[in-house]
């Protein structure tokens, strides 16, 4: 397994934690991440565009996108429900967090709105961890659960941060499938998280 991503991430966390970078630069960081994401997308696009075989395989995948996004989401919800039973979290918090599908910024905001700081914190950490686990564990996930499982596991992050790792582990031909599945979930999360939280917390206070 390639340990480079974990090492680089740890270095980043230490640098951020120890405030080794001046405050003014830190504020630029989220902009830098966005710029890097755009560069990433150009590079991924170029890599996909130059490969002709990719376009033939795309036709075969078209019907699978919505299917994978929705079965993946259902798996997430089941995981959230199971977690609620195992570690004593209210079903509403647990299922709504799981519905976040790795999209931690929106999930955190939504849970803060409809729940409170603790719900928001759980939503934040669990979704951030999901993103990290998917990025670091992708070679392993791809080996066990194949291309559909890999895209599903990545949830909403399949369209941006996890995309390069999925492409690297499973192959270029899933790039577009992965992106499209991530887009569907990214569009659903802002509605699903607060709705599920409200319904479940009303039914099971």
């Amino acid at each position, binding site marked *: 397994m390639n340990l480079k991503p974990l090492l680089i991430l740890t270095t980043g966390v230490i640098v951020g934690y120890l405030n080794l970078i001046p405050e003014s630069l830190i504020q630029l960081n989220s902009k830098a991440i966005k710029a890097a*994401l755009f560069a990433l997308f150009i590079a991924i696009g170029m890599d996909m565009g130059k490969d002709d075989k990719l376009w033939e395989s795309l036709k075969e995948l078209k019907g699978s996108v919505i299917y994978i996004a929705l079965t993946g989401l259902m798996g997430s919800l089941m995981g959230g429900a199971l977690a609620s039973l195992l570690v004593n979290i209210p079903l509403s918090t647990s299922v709504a967090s799981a519905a976040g599908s790795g999209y931690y910024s929106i999930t955190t905001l939504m849970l803060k709105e409809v729940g409170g700081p603790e719900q928001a914190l759980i939503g934040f950490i669990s979704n951030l961890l999901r993103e990290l686990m998917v990025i670091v564990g992708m070679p392993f996930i791809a080996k066990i659960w194949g291309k559909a499982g890999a895209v599903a596991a990545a949830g909403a992050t399949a369209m941006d941060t996890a995309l390069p790792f999925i492409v690297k582990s499973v192959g270029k031909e899933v790039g577009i499938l992965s992106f499209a599945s991530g887009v569907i979930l990214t569009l659903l999360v802002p509605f699903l998280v607060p709705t599920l939280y409200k319904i479940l917390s009303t039914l099971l206070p």
Partner: protein
Amino acid sequence: MDLALFAITLLSGIIIGKRKLLPERIIDKSDKLLNIVIYTLILLIGIEIGNYREVLTSLGNIGIKSVTIALLSTILSAHFTKMLYERRKRN
């Protein structure tokens, strides 16, 4: 908003690669470019996480709950999809 921009960026990349709008030398190195950008991105995300001190220090009770949600949602998501996807392919 970001979503549309990301889609446009990806599409531009695909067109550049397909129509060979940049010198072949650069397009051929797109996978190397990809690696450099990926690692830069990981470093930047790490710095962002490191800055959330509250999160890193309160990784006790809330942490265990969150780890459980993250693990189970990821695994069941992959597993459920694989199961149904393979059944669908067989039919």
